[in-house]
């Protein structure tokens, strides 16, 4: 027997998943409230005891590996020059590394913006701007301001190569904790995430984990290796691409609705068609977007904020509820679990809204352009119309009595025919909540992680 224990320190729950590597089986899963304020190991040991109860015995683990989004996750600020180009590139790199992008700034920073970086407890700053050989003035200005105002969190410089030497001088002069990477956008519309993403991960391992009080648990576990969303992204990539003879599922979309955010992951190329002209920054095969204003608890008010008066009135009448009151209650009591049919009904409705709106922002758009040479298609973002599977994960979907309705919202185009949403996908649910654990396992045993996901995801007929 050879057992692995995979741990996910979430903001609300610490989730455990025990895997027997030799018999290739998931032994059991368990969860307990995360206790990051007092001592994170309390919650961990309680969850571990629950796991032993389920197994009926104490077992030994050869490896214990963990991912974490506890204590607010990995909070980053993304800085660039032009909004559609280096700002967007910087933002995507942060999201792809599993971070929450709390602050996004373009052009010259202001003192107020730098104060925000300091006051909002940002963990890492990603500074970019200018294609290689292009604008240097802006990044140099921004680096100076970050230095002068004494930003004392790690700063990654991933901007114009031509400014690199000046930037190093500025950072040295101000004694900043800096890291130099390749440009996130070396050419116009060309995305280069690898170097910066790896550096974010390294800083997360070396510094952030300690700052978040997770270091305390080091004697119990072998290593914390990833921010949780990064683990999910790794799992999603593996599930899509396959590994050696174990085939993948092809083009997929993952929907993860949480208390504070709704995360969407898509695994596919921007387009398979030859008759479209692609526009804007290059789209990554594995793309993650995070909506910080769409969530079931902390961010529930955001769902209503995006509605007009008329829509609110319509919903209240149609569903016979007071939507504003309901979301405020959920915002004030973030640990609220549904107690009756009515609570469930409202959570279901909010989850559907999260799925619908987050897809609105994730999906690519296509416009027909009439030209003297005939009809031409102009596309920005990713074409998801041929996605084969839409997969749901996260508490609200797993516990819903009508999972399919939530996931179906990702395909609902209403009146907007320009959106390239999945057209006719099949729906799956990560019923055991194993995506993040499998992303961890994938770092050691990719083939087994893939097999376990394929076996344990529930099909919705």
């Amino acid at each position, binding site marked *: 027997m050879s057992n692995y224990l995979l741990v996910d320190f979430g903001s609300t729950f610490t989730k455990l998943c025990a895997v027997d590597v030799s018999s290739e089986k998931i032994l059991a899963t368990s969860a307990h409230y995360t206790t990051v304020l007092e001592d994170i190991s309390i919650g961990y040991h309680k969850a571990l005891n629950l796991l032993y109860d389920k197994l009926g015995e104490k077992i030994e683990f050869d490896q214990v590996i963990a991912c974490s989004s506890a204590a607010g996750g990995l909070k980053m600020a993304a800085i660039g020059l*032009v909004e559609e*180009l280096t700002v967007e590139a910087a933002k995507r790199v942060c999201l792809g590394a599993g971070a929450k992008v709390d602050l996004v700034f373009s052009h010259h920073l202001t003192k107020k913006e730098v104060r925000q970086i300091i006051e909002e407890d940002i963990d890492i700053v990603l500074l970019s701007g200018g294609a290689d*050989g*292009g604008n240097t*003035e802006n990044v140099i200005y921004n680096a100076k301001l970050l230095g002068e105002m004494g930003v004392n969190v790690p700063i990654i410089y991933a901007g114009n190569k031509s400014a690199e030497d000046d930037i190093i001088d500025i950072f040295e002069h101000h004694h900043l904790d800096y890291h130099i990477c390749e440009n996130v956008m070396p*050419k*116009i519309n060309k995305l280069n995430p690898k170097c910066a993403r790896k550096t974010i991960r390294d800083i997360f391992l070396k510094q952030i984990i300690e700052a978040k009080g997770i270091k305390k648990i080091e004697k119990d576990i072998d290593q914390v290796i990833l921010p949780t969303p990064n683990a999910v992204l790794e799992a999603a990539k593996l599930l899509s691409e396959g590994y050696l003879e174990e085939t993948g599922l092809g083009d997929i979309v993952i929907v993860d609705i949480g208390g504070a955010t709704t995360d969407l992951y898509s695994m596919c190329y921007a387009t398979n068609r030859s008759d479209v002209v692609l526009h804007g920054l290059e789209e990554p095969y594995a793309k993650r977007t995070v909506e910080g204003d769409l969530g079931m608890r902390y961010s529930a008010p955001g769902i209503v904020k995006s509605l007009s008066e008329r829509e609110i009135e319509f919903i209240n009448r149609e569903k016979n509820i007071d939507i504003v009151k309901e979301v405020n209650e959920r915002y004030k009591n973030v640990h609220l679990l549904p107690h009756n049919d009515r609570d469930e009904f409202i959570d279901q409705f909010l989850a559907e809204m999260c799925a619908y709106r987050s897809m609105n922002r994730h999906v690519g758009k296509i416009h027909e*352009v009439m*030209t003297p*040479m005939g009809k031409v298609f102009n596309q920005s973002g990713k074409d998801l119309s041929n996605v084969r599977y839409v997969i749901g994960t996260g508490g609200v979907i797993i516990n819903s009595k009508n999972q399919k309705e939530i996931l179906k919202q990702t395909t609902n185009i209403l009146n907007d025919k320009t959106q390239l949403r999945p057209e006719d996908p099949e729906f799956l649910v990560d019923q055991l909540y194993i995506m993040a654990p499998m992303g961890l396992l994938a770092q050691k045993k990719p083939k087994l992680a893939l097999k376990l996901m394929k076996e344990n995801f529930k099909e919705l007929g």
Partner: protein
Amino acid sequence: MKTIVIGVIGADVHAVGNKIIDYTLTNSGYNVINIGVLSSQEDFINAAIETDADLIMVSSLYGHGEIDCRGMREKCIESGLEDIFLYVGGNIVVGKQDFNETLKRFRDMGFDRVYPPGTSIDMALEDIKEDLGE
């Protein structure tokens, strides 16, 4: 090295001339940023900011150039590109109009160089050398 942003503006998909311009300017030693067909004014301007470009060269082959180019100089000024050179060429207006009229209209719109149909890129190259000083 001087940087030039090129592309085809508006709902125009004429890609051949665009490739020829790219090839010629690159061979002449310029850093060419080609944003391709179906490009908006903003696409040109954003690329010029990020690359610190010296010149934007707009192509338009389908006759709607005047509508597509209107307001571009103003947007450049708003974006901090007040000194950038703006060139335009192709079939930039509908039908057979007097080119002197067309020239004046585009000059008034803030374009530094305006080329009539059938201009070879080699001719424009002379102007580029003069304007960019190399």
